[in-house]
């Protein structure tokens, strides 16, 4: 799933390990999210959104929403 996780993380100067620690997941999980090798569960998506203080759809592109 396309997302802006890498940009948001870089803006804060966090490494993948830093972000993983804040989210309670492994560095590999963060890498998989950034490289679109893993679609997050709803719970993890909400955790990410809460951490960055953004709505889920501001971070993850909704593939089911028709383009405007």
């Amino acid at each position, binding site marked *: 799933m396309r997302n802006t996780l890498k940009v948001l993380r870089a803006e804060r100067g966090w490494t993948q390990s830093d972000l993983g620690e804040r989210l*309670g997941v*492994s560095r590999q999980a963060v890498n998989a999210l950034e490289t679109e*090798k*893993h679609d*997050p569960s709803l719970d993890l998506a909400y955790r990410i959104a809460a951490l960055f203080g953004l709505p889920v759809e501001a971070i993850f592109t909704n593939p089911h929403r028709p383009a405007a």
Partner: protein
Amino acid sequence: MSVAVLFPPASRRYIFTSIATAVLYVLSIKAISWGQSQLDGPLLWAAILVPVGCIAVQLWATLRLMTQVDEFMRALLARRFIIAACLAFIVASAWGFLETFARVDHLPGYMVYAIFWVAFCIVSPFIRSTR
């Protein structure tokens, strides 16, 4: 990078359990092979429970690891586990048919467990995504 990051407690427990059961598995088979002439009846059946128990504990440790890692690692392990199990079923079934109809050498049933882990090692580098 520290050992704690590379090998979190759940992974360390899994590695320890896997090594311990593998060592006990090999030793118990050696012991049973060596004492086969002395062991008989219920005692032999009881002795065979040791390597079987090692397999059960190792599988339990693998399933427990899946519950203790994050969702990405869990999904990855589950996919690898399922595909390796499918391959082991296919290889064991194919060999069974070959034994019956093509008279190839007998493959002991317990080898399916080793085949499963060989298949797991083969498929793991190719399954790096949960999608």
